[in-house]
């Protein structure tokens, strides 16, 4: 066993712990189950303690972390369910299938709770697009998300896409799904009721992803990964679509006690988690699991990660009805076990007992580590920036053009047009604005969805950078007229066993916790992805935030588009010399350096409330936050979205380059009609926020002092064609 446990990724200490739990040596099946369930990916053994810092409650939160997804009340008897997850390593091996099965997995997390999935989001990070491998990955990942998500009929309505060489060998493919349900229809991933049947629904079990959870997700990624290829999983969106419909029908007919999707660690995870949550035991007849390959061993069956499978628990007298519903949807539903008294998870194979262990020892009593954290020795170095020694261009038109035709700020149309972002008829603000807005047909309200996470800021200052991710995401929601309600996250970091990585992680979570608490957006679900490294080099620490906001009346939604000529353009917030970590430095000087932008959470909150209130009172007709590329890029985006120019007079003592491209936080560009200007000004005063009328909408050019003068049509062509050209 000694060699085997090491090969499976368990430490000697962990192995002894297993012996102590069982009071004997584990057999091969048990060892396999422990190795997966105690892997970083499934057990959160390095992150658990740190994550305790996050605020998880608010009056609207129905279900926080701990279930398959978070649930938040949006009024009128309805709730949204959402979560984000990573599929980084599978996507690096096979971009199409990796991304596709990523969507499949996160969508299952949502309908497991009883909710109909209504939207997906896809935050993506890749290496330099000049590398052919990067282009292959981007195209494969986007096609995979499209291939799977479109088939399911779930609109992918937002996401983001950034390029930095640090993601070269280890792209980030995070996916978020949002579902909608009646609050009364919540299903939990709980087994209970002695004698109840345990039913496996969906695809047959094959050798997919065996070793996937531990090998692909919990070890560093290197050249030898190619040899691990046979574990690649192929997605079957058609079966998933049938599963959605069948499970929602089972929910509506109230035929289930509990429902759990099968993801990492397959049956081992689903059985132990449901049993553990329900404080019951479970008996599994492993030989009843329908197989794709006849010669599979119990060990393989218990840890297979074959996709498109669900585990349901139902009362014995309902089993036939459950099977009938599944059959109608063309799915097999096989009773593979039953709920028993106690806490043991037992497995039988042709009459023989093949495993017998306490369910919680797998699901919740795994090892927990306090990893060592140490501030990296290079941290101060990268924060230094000698601004004056750089050769700054004097042609601001050119700078603007380079920014908006560069990989990070050009239009993402090429991506989102490959996604069906309209199906279900809820999308009332399409991609291309700050947040996507979905109407809730049943209540007349709407929700705003956005995701953000600037890895460069976090690299330079994990604490502040992560605060900014939360603040910016909330700002996107506010610009759309939404009140931020709750968030999810995906924390993408390197190897947590390295003290400097763990320091980044701890600082980032602390930043997230502080910002979330201050802005009153609890974290209701999330995911940690460690070991994002190639040949020992970690990616930038990249926490991604996904947020849901509520728009009380559907009419009070806003886009970034300048809606009509003759409006005042107002800048809410203040511009400082915040050039550290900026897109300007990265795109024009190839630098990731300096102090990231300052952030005053109190000001942030006041500016956001002013924006939301201004929209609610119809003082503000359009709104856009200033983020990467600063106010100049924000203004150009507003112009292009509305097909309408602007003339700006900036009265400032800052250098033009700084005023134009500084990435100071807590700012919005909004439009206000003349008759509302007075009220808007007093609102700003009341909220105690900086407020400047900087110009007027109109014409077909963007003109800023005598610094910038560009023709919109030309900029539109340049910005919209850039991504396809960069990826060609």
């Amino acid at each position: 066993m000694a060699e085997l446990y090491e090969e499976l990724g368990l430490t000697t200490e962990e192995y002894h712990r297993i012996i102590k739990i069982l009071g004997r040596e584990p057999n091969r099946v048990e060892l396999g189950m422990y190795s997966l369930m105690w892997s970083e990916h499934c057990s959160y053994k390095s992150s658990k303690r740190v994550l305790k810092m996050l605020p998880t409650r608010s009056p609207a939160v129905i279900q926080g972390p701990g279930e398959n997804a978070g649930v938040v009340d949006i009024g009128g008897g309805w709730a949204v369910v959402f979560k984000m997850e990573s599929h980084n390593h599978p996507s690096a091996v096979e971009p199409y299938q990796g991304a596709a099965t990523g969507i499949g997995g996160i969508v299952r997390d949502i309908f497991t709770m009883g909710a109909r999935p209504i939207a997906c989001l896809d935050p993506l990070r890749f290496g330099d697009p000049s590398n052919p491998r990067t282009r292959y990955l981007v195209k494969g990942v986007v096609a995979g998300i499209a291939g799977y998500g479109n088939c399911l009929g779930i609109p992918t309505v937002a996401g983001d896409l950034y390029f930095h060489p640090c993601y070269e060998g280890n792209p980030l493919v995070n996916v978020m799904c949002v579902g909608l349900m009646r609050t009364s229809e919540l299903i939990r991933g709980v087994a209970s009721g002695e004698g109840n049947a345990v039913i496996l629904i969906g695809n047959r079990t094959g050798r997919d992803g065996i070793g996937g959870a531990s090998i692909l997700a919990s070890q560093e990624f290197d050249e030898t990964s190619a040899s691990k290829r046979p574990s690649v999983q192929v997605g079957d969106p058609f079966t998933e679509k049938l599963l959605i419909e069948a499970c929602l029908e089972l929910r509506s007919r109230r035929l289930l006690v509990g429902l759990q999707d099968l993801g990492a660690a397959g049956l081992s995870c689903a059985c132990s988690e449901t049993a553990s949550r329900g404080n019951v035991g479970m008996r599994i007849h492993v030989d009843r699991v329908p197989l794709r390959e006849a010669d599979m061993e119990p060990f393989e069956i218990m840890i297979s990660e074959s996709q498109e499978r669900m585990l349901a628990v139902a009362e014995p007298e309902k089993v036939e009805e459950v099977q009938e519903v599944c059959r109608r949807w063309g799915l097999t539903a096989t009773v593979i076990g039953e709920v028993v008294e106690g806490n043991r998870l037992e497995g039988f194979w042709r009459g023989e007992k093949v495993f017998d262990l306490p369910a919680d020892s797998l699901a919740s009593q795994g090892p927990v580590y306090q990893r060592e954290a140490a501030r990296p020795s290079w941290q101060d170095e990268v924060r230094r920036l000698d601004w004056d020694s750089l050769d700054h261009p004097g042609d601001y038109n050119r700078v603007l053009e380079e920014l908006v035709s560069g990989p990070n700020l050009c239009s993402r149309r090429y991506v989102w047009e490959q996604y069906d972002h309209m199906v279900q008829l809820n999308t009332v603000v399409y991609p291309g604005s700050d947040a996507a807005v979905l109407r809730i047909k049943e209540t007349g309200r709407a929700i705003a969805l956005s995701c953000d996470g600037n890895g460069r800021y976090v690299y330079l200052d994990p604490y502040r950078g992560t605060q900014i991710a939360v603040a910016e995401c909330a700002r996107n929601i506010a610009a759309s007229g939404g009140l931020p309600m709750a968030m999810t996250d995906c924390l993408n970091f390197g190897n947590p066993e390295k003290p400097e990585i763990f320091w980044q992680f701890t600082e980032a979570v602390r930043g997230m916790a502080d910002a979330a608490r201050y802005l009153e957006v609890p974290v209701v679900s999330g995911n940690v992805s460690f070991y994002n490294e190639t040949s020992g080099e970690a990616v930038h620490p990249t926490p991604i935030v996904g947020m849901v906001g509520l728009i009380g009346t559907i009419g009070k939604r806003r886009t970034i588009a300048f809606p009509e000529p003759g409006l005042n353009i107002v800048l809410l917030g203040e511009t400082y010399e915040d050039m550290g970590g900026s897109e300007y430095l990265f795109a024009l000087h190839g630098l990731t350096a300096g102090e990231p932008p300052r952030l005053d959470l109190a000001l942030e909150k006041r500016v956001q409330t002013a924006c939301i209130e201004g929209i609610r009172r119809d003082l503000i007709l359009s709104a856009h936050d200033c983020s990467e590329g600063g106010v100049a890029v924000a203004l150009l985006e507003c112009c292009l979205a509305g097909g309408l120019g602007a003339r700006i007079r900036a009265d400032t003592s800052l250098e033009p380059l700084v005023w134009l491209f500084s990435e100071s936080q807590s700012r919005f560009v909004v439009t206000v009609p003349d008759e509302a200007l007075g009220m808007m000004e007093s609102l700003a005063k009341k909220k105690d926020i900086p407020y400047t009328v900087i110009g007027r909408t109109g014409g077909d050019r963007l003109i800023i002092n005598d610094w910038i003068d560009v023709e919109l049509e030309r900029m539109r062509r340049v910005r919209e064609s850039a991504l396809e050209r960069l990826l060609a």
Partner: protein
Amino acid sequence: MSEADQRRFSIFVSPLRGVLDPQGQAALGALHSLGYDEVEDVRIGKYIVLTVRGGSEERVREMCEKLLANPIIEDYRIESESG
């Protein structure tokens, strides 16, 4: 070069053994529902015909590795035919 230099290569790409083949499964289901119960398995891959002037099988193999097949989930076989 003359017509005689033209060669045709047929490439047969099929899903690796053990890899899920949803297309094949769907076709199998459809054949059964049409009454073709004798069909026990269906695997669906790609049939690629290359017309090449003066190339070698070695080069075609390279093309398969790089572009035409996805070795992570697919197997392939090349047949050449002079034309």
